[in-house]
Each structure stands twice: as C-alpha cells, then as structure tokens.
C-alpha cells in the first residue's frame, strides 16, 4: 500500500487485509463475510481509494480475524483478483490473490425455488462459471443462471 493510503486506514497488528477489491464492491464483500453490524472486531473499510493497479478500488481490514479458504472462495465470486494479506505483528506473513474457481460447489443456494437442490435431496449445489465479468453462474442441475445480486443473496 502507498503512504497516502496507509494514512487513511491504520496498519493492523494482526488480521486480514483485503485489498484491490473492485471499486464499489466492499459492502458486498462484507455481506459475504457476514459482517453486518458490530462483530466485536475492528473493521476498517475504505471505498473509492486511488489505486495504481485498478484506478480505483475498495479496501477492507479486519483485525484479529484470519479468513479461511471457504470464505475466500466466496469473496472471489464478487471480487475476483482481490489481494489478501494475512498480517501478524504488523508484518505481512502471507499474501495472495483470490481467483474464482471454475466450479462452485456447496457455498451457494440455487435461486430457483423449483431446483432439485432445494427440495431436501442429499445433494450439494454446484455451479459453473459461464462469465467472469460480470460474474454469471449456471446451476449444474436446473441450468438457471445467477448474476451478482442473486449470488450475494444466495450465499450460505
């Protein structure tokens, strides 16, 4: 991060920084992470920040919380290419970009109420990514397509 941006949000001692979120998507990422109100942790959000890489971006810092891989896969659905930094004792100990997988299994409900995956059968939902920008997922079973808003509403 540049000096200018670190002035806006302080460095964290321990936790997760989600950088290079496509501008305007920070609130969707928070929704995916189930951060609606006071979760007892300090969460800093910067929206519409200048970025050399993206022009403009959003940034989220969550103190004391290390995201697991299932949460990261979910973020990739709305913020492909976001950079995750795991921070400990003010040092970045791990840094990587999230990538949307080709197939999304088990982390979303199909938005079609008549889909067989919503009828109590013992089956995990499964979606194929048919477009990355904008993201479009197609249910492997009922073939219904979902776009960003529906995807966010149906994350489990």
């Amino acid at each position: 991060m540049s000096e200018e941006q670190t002035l806006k949000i302080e460095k964290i001692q321990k936790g997760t920084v989600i950088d290079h979120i496509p501008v305007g998507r920070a609130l969707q990422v928070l929704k995916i992470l189930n951060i609606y109100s006071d979760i007892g942790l300090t969460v800093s959000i910067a929206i519409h920040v200048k970025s050399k890489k993206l022009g403009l971006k959003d940034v989220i810092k969550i103190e004391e919380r290390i995201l697991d891989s299932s949460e990261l896969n979910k973020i990739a659905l709305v913020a492909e290419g976001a950079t995750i930094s795991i921070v400990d004792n003010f040092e970045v100990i791990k840094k990587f970009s999230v990538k949307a997988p080709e197939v999304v299994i088990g982390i979303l409900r199909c938005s079609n109420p008549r889909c067989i995956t919503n009828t109590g059968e013992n089956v995990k939902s499964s979606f194929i990514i048919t477009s990355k920008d904008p993201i479009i997922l197609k249910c492997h079973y009922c073939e219904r397509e979902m776009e960003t808003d529906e995807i966010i509403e149906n994350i489990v």
Partner: protein
Amino acid sequence: MWLNRDLVSIGDLSKEEILEVLAKANSLLEYGKSGHPDLPLKGKIIATLFYEPSTRTRLSFESAAKRMGAEVLGFGSLESTSVAKGETLLDTVRIIDGYSDAIVLRHPSEGAARLASEYSEVPVINAGDGAGQHPTQTLLDIFTIWKEVGKVDDTTIGFVGDLKYGRTVHSLSKALSLFNVNLHFISPEQLKLPKHIRKEIEKKVTVKEHKDLEEVIPKLDVLYVTRIQKERFPDPEEYKKVAGTYVLRASTVSRGKRSMVIMHPLPRVDEIPFEIDNLPQARYFRQAAYGVPVRMALLDLILRGE
C-alpha cells in the same frame, strides 16, 4: 458414443447427433405402428418413473419400448409408491437402477434428471423436469419439421403463444439455433421470450419478435402454436383478451403458405379450434405420433449403441 449415455438436456447433443436420431427414427418409422420384427431390445427392461401425470410422454415411451421388444415397469402416479412415504428421488433411483436397463424420468423439480443421472449406473432419459428440460419432445419436434417440411436447414419457423413460460419453445428454439433457420416469435408483451434465451440464440440465427401473427404468417414454413395458460395472468379479464387475440383462425392460416406446417406440443385448449384440424396444414397429431419412432430410435441408440 450412444451406448449407455444419459439424455438430460437437448444441449447435451450436437447437430450431428440430432441428425443421427432423426435418420434412425426415420428408419424405424414403419415399426412405430407394427412393432420391430427383430425385437432388438428383447430382454431389456425400461423403468418409467413418472412423478407427475403425463399422457403422451409416458405412453409413447412405453409404446416405443414395447415396439422394440423391451419390457416396461414403473409408475405413472405416486399413490402406491414409496415416494408417497417420503422416499427421496435419489433413493428411488438407486433402487430402480438395480431393476432396469434404463430409467425414463419425469419429475416436477428442475434438474432432477441431471441429479438422477449422477447416481444411476444405468442411463437416465429425461422425460421432463418441471419447467426445465424435455429433450425427447424437442427431438420429436425437430423430426416433425424434418419430415413434414422436408428439411430443417433453410426454414422459417414462427412460435406463437406463451413464449415466456413454455419450455418446449425454449428448448426447441435453442436446438434449432444449431441449424440454419430464421426464427420469429409472436406473443403478447407479457409472454415474450425470456431475454437470456433470445440472447443465446441470436448469436447463431436470425431472431425477430412480433405481436401480430397476421403480418408474419406469409413467411412461415412452420407455425408452432403453444397454449396460453390462464394462471399466468393475475387479471382474468386480461387473460380473456390476450388469449382471444391468439386463437388461430382459418382465415389467418389462409394468409400463410399452403405448404405451411402447423405444430403444437399438445394438449391444446382453445388456441387451435377444431375447424383447423381438417386443414392440410394441421400436423399436430402426426407430430404426437412421431413421438414413438423418435423414442424407439433413442432407446435403441442408448441401449444397444446402434
């Protein structure tokens, strides 16, 4: 490769494979009425699991199986089955899998056949999953066009009626987009073809939308009529008005080519009055009859690979 293959969605088939089914159905056409003399599927058992009522699809599958010499078992309603006791689809499929050589499945939930195909060792043929896929209907529709018009490429096909909810229209128009065709969609504003389907097919073929059948009928080689369902309209008055506008009149048919072929997936209600049945253009009963040879062809391809 056809042997032991599932048929879940018409999108699973290439144009070449569709043409292969048509040619095979044509070669079996005469046996659709009399039965195949060699009984090529003798000793095979076809299970027909119908979780929803159906007349044409179930009976034409059963007729096709028997004409080829196969035995049929299954159910057409749920009252006397374990499903009525709450058994899941997957459990039922895994059990019937052990009793049969192929499963023909109709189910109210979309995606049911795809799921069943993943758990069944024997091939699963989708006979309609809710508002989802019904690939054998699409194949018999294409067969009807091929037989009655004489070709599929270079034809102009008009769909009229409920184009929003009608699954036969969706999958037939997608399958036709593999061919060189012109498609016209005629419907009231409320029942227009869904945008995502239009977007998908107009990448490959010419698509035009209309409100008035009269203006487009002279161009058509095929007129595919569908039923406008009352329950799609919150206001019954609005339904009456719209449905009345889309009733096919003999005077409208006379504006079209004499060689035009009128199709309908059936059952019809008022959209095709009985007077049309006697016109040479009316082919919907023949279309329904073609369900038998087309399903004979599919069963033979899937169970014997030839």
